[in-house]
């Protein structure tokens, strides 16, 4: 899938993206092109800037230098552009970040009703379908606090999907989960990947990467150290840092 995109516009285009927190430089020039339907896995040690990078793509973090263009819209200080980009990108967080004061169905229908201005009935119908898709239709009227971590993360995915985004961003979606719940979340992500969704996933779940990733990026110290297909990364890594990191996370 990753080859022969010359005629096509990338849906995500990053050129020389820099980001500072005060004097600390978190991103030191990231270049990336992602095409429609691709599944990208980003991995690397903590503090490597991978989370910061994925958060610049819907402007939860502001980049200070370089260019980010999402589906033809450039992210800048223009609030209207930011709102458009956020409508087209869904995000799933490590800590789920469901709204604890709203029920599951209210969590999912909130944005469609208030941002897309859909009537409540339509929003709830689609929310019901999404809950079916993530496998927990019976939890609609519960509050997030009553669900397990895996169920909460699946609700979070349904919430992001309810806006019918073109791109889904995942920021370590399984890192806060108990081991027995990781699979139920990954299963939904695999199904989503196979349905043709464009996905950027920050994760250390290498089984997921092997199964569905089109390309992988290894981040370290605010830079992309190496990128390639899962086959290239796992079987023939070029850089010493990549080899070392892979040996550390695959050894157990």
């Amino acid at each position: 899938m990753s080859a022969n995109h010359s005629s096509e516009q990338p849906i995500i285009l990053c050129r020389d993206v820099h980001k500072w927190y005060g004097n600390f430089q978190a991103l030191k020039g990231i270049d990336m092109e992602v095409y429609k339907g691709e599944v990208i896995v980003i991995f690397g040690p903590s503090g490597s800037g991978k989370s910061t990078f994925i958060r610049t793509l819907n402007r939860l973090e502001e980049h200070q230098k370089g260019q980010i263009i999402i589906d033809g819209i450039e992210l800048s200080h223009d609030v209207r552009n930011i709102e458009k980009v956020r409508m087209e990108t869904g995000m799933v967080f490590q800590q789920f970040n469901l709204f604890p004061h709203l029920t599951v169905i209210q969590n999912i229908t909130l944005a469609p009703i208030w941002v897309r201005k859909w009537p409540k009935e339509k929003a709830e119908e689609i929310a019901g379908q999404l809950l079916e898709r993530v496998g927990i239709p019976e939890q609609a009227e519960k509050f997030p606090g009553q669900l397990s971590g895996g169920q909460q993360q699946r609700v979070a995915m349904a919430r992001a999907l309810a806006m019918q985004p073109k791109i889904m961003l995942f920021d370590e979606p399984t890192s806060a989960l108990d081991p027995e719940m990781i699979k139920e979340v990954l299963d939904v992500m695999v199904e989503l990947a196979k349905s043709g969704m464009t996905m950027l996933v920050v994760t250390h779940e290498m089984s997921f990467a092997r199964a569905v990733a089109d390309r992988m990026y290894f981040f370290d110290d605010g830079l992309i150290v190496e990128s390639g297909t899962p086959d290239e990364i796992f079987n023939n890594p070029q850089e010493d840092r990549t080899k070392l990191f892979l040996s550390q996370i695959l050894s157990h």
Partner: protein
Amino acid sequence: MAATSKVVRPPQSPGALQWLRENLFNNLLNSLLTVISLAVILFTLAGAFRWVFFTANWEPISNNPLLYLVGQYPRDDLWRLGVGLVLSSFLFGGSWRVWGGVLRTLAFTYALFLLAGVLWPLQAETLTLTMRAFLLANLVVIYLGFAFAGFKFVRPLSVLFGWVFTLIITLVLLHGISSVAFLPDVSTGLWGGIMVTLILAIGGITLSFPIGVLLALGRRSSLPVVTIFSTAFIEVIRGVPLIGILFLSSIIVPLFLPPEVRIDRLLRALLGMTLFSAAYTAENVRGGLAAVPPGQVEAAKAIGLNNFQITILIVLPQALRAVIPPIVGQFISLFKDTTLASGVAVLELLSVGRSILQANPQYIGLQTEVYLFIAAVFWILSYLMSYASQRLEVALGVGQR
């Protein structure tokens, strides 16, 4: 071992007698202490009982119930307050139906007050039969409100609007409209008693809450002008005692206004209390805002909500829920602080009691009765607020995520 499939029961809690023996009479010293404490408690209670029912002279209260309720408000115009009372009865019934729980308890308490008014053994000239009949009719109105709220089109929001409407209508009626013949102006100098205390408290609470929330949001705003204004306002008000603010608003502010602009005395006191309470509410709300995890705002941004929607739909509901206890505490102290308005010649409950004592030589030496009565009124109403807040916390699941 496996054969004994006996169900393991939790240890039985001991019976009352067993408990007494184990905790209060388990050795000589404890038995002695128990007996002595019991004697002291009984002695105190008996003394209090004897004083309240035999020694005390409640005449300053029982002879002037209307003064405590409404001050010098013209007796011929009391029907205006009656209209407000009927509307309130109707809405208490409606709130009970719509919200249940704590509102049911409040409606019951309200009905109990009415019933006490109907049955109170006072002389006929202070509490006429007409008044008693009117109070009794209000009990029926509560039921009517309850029944009416059973209709499908009555929503919680409509009851809330009903309350706001009632508040405004009652105040307008009490004040009078000079252009309407049967509604002559009644100077607020004649208003008094529990009526004024409640106007200051309810008015102060309903006005200071939204102002306080806005100030708290303003203090966290990204616009420097708004932040500086909010912070300065909060810190200045919090640095001044309430009585100082009341003096400021009633004595100094009029000096700066042209003589033809006269702001009502009661209104000035209400303004002072509102601003004071708003500053404290703002700081409480700010604590709640800080307690909302940043991930909530990020998630709300990520699904495309704008800043206004994030504040209204995500941040405030969580922040306010977390600060119900301190906010209600703030409102209770505002309620009790209404007594300070006596310092600027507003005849609230305390000053009515004081002036009854001063104006009637036959009441000399009966201060204890009067002030105890006033304290009891404040305690009952404060406790109701505190109780309502506890129930509200449970209903909204404070402390659960």
